[in-house]
């Protein structure tokens, strides 16, 4: 079973600050980590490989420094790593990122499963996983909390919802995004770290991708950021006290009046 895991390097938001002037993340001095949800994706892929054999290829799109994230994935048991990096990709929104990653996945070749974390903790969009599946024109199962069964060309997974979970079956190849309930990621091993140190990371640039140049980077990004602002903190609510009957009447009055029902 050949698996491709898409990961992202993100700032460690446990100690990140927002610049009050620009309303953007203050990135200087903040450590970069592998997006925590992607750690579950890596772990699930490595577990499947240990059970069924095959190769786990981990892939990321980002600047040269994102190599560090790929090496960490190798130390956790992934076999190969691909860095998708080019100035032409700068300014990509989730659409262009999904397109670029899908092209890179096609370049890597035959795969049975693509696994992504459910979302990245910096952008929090949860769009890139589904986007990659759409561009690849393969089925997707998002928010997977358990793979119930997987074999040659079939997967059945539990998809977490707010009320409970769906059971979804799909042919392979397929893309899944995973939630943290799916497993407990292992810690790196010494032999894994030594491999990670030495491994040669494959690089893919725009020219390697058979991609439409107009669909890459800022040019290929339909999202326009008009304004970034910090939402004002919510004002305190109003507590009504007393007997239920009185309160409900007063509530109706309030809703009719100020809150214009």
């Amino acid at each position, binding site marked *: 079973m050949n698996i491709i895991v898409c990961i992202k390097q993100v700032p460690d938001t446990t100690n990140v600050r927002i610049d009050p002037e620009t309303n953007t993340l203050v990135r200087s001095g903040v450590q970069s980590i592998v997006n925590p949800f992607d750690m579950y994706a890596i772990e699930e892929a490595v577990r499947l490989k240990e059970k069924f054999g095959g190769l786990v290829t981990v892939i990321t799109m980002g600047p040269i420094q994102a190599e560090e994230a790929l090496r960490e994935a190798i130390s956790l048991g992934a076999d190969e790593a691909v860095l998708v990096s080019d100035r032409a990709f700068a300014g990509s929104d989730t659409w262009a990122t999904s397109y670029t990653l899908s092209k890179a996945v096609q370049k890597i070749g035959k795969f049975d499963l693509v696994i992504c974390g459910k979302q990245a903790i910096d952008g929090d969009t949860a769009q890139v996983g589904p986007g990659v599946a759409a561009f690849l024109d393969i089925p997707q199962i998002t928010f997977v909390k358990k793979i119930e069964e997987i074999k040659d060309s079939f997967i059945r997974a539990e998809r977490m919802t707010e009320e409970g979970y769906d059971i979804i079956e799909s042919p392979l190849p397929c893309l899944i995004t995973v939630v943290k309930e799916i497993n407990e990621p292992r*810690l790196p*091993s*010494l032999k894994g*770290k*030594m491999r990670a*140190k030495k491994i040669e990371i494959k690089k893919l640039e725009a020219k390697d991708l058979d991609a439409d140049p107009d669909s890459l980077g800022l040019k290929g990004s339909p999202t326009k950021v008009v304004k970034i602002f910090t939402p004002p903190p919510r004002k305190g609510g109003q507590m009504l006290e007393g007997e239920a009957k009185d309160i409900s009447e007063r509530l109706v009055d309030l809703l009719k009046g100020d809150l214009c029902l």
Partner: protein
Amino acid sequence: MDYLLTEEQVMIRDIARQIAQEKIKPVAAKYDAEGIFPWDIVKILAASDLCGIYIEEKYGGTGGGAMELVLATEELSKACGGISLAFAATALGTFPIILFGTDEQKQKYLPDIAKGKKLAAFGLTEAGAGSDAGAIATTAEKKGDYYVLNGTKQWITNGGEAEVYTVVASTNRSKGARGAAAFIVEKGTKGFEFGKKEDKMGIRASATRELVFTDCKIPKENLLGKEGMGFIVAMKTFDQSRPGVAAQAVGIAQGALDLTVEYMKERKQFGKSISSFQGLQFMLADMATQIEASRALIYACARMIDSGNSKVGKDSAMAKLFASDMAMRVTTDCVQLFGGYGYMRDYPIEKYMRDAKITQIYEGTNQIQRGIIANHLIKETAAK
């Protein structure tokens, strides 16, 4: 301080640190209170390839030595001096095989230990033979292709949990220390039973039991070295393993100091953090300096061992003596700095003080260490 570690040593330290902080720290108080043996942590150590860091590659390890062992032990001990012992006491039980085993013995026992599938333990101490190791009463009588063991070993770390035991017994009691021999005994051998688990002051996540031998027949191939070498096996083993105990002590002290600095920044008295008081700052500075001095001594000693220098007896005794006395002082002061809270079991600091105490006692009391150091000094001057 930068100790110019190799890349691989940095990796080992980082992995051990991550395991200690993410996996051991959250369970340390519970395992201490309930005396739970840390098999779950042993599994994590095994999966991270740490169990074989002091074992040759051809026997399944990653080829390191004493330095790798002390780096890992120190990091693990920062989170819990008891849990780290499952790892460190296995090294103690394995050293006799590494130092004196034949190729067949190494092939048979080391790979499983390196993979973390089996733990090891070392059995020397008896009720009447602690510091006076020559007084052991456990006997090994040769009968044909076997040795028959009789007697009881006391306070054996990893006892009952380990699969592989290296045990010192006498083949000729009239010869005293010169009549001793070391043997490998496997758990499950007929006539080999365990006593009750001891209820200890500290290192409570570590299992300490008696090893009871009653007409226990072991194949003669399990003799380590030769008859009469048992005492040498034990002494050479301790020469190698004492930096490990010292590293446990440094880890305990550093773990306690780290907690104390954090606490002192938070704790307010007289309207200020208590870390702003100079009298207390001086205590912190002294503790940090003593820890660093211990660490430097241990690393120097471990590197000396790894260079193949066999004359490490005095230096490894110094490392163990200095680091364990330091750990007792530092952890006592840390409890002091926590004040009344420090004395309460709800806070993690008193455990460090309880765990530190054993490092002054086992693998040779610190009085014995001073004796070793003095003996070396006197011999050295006599040789001049």
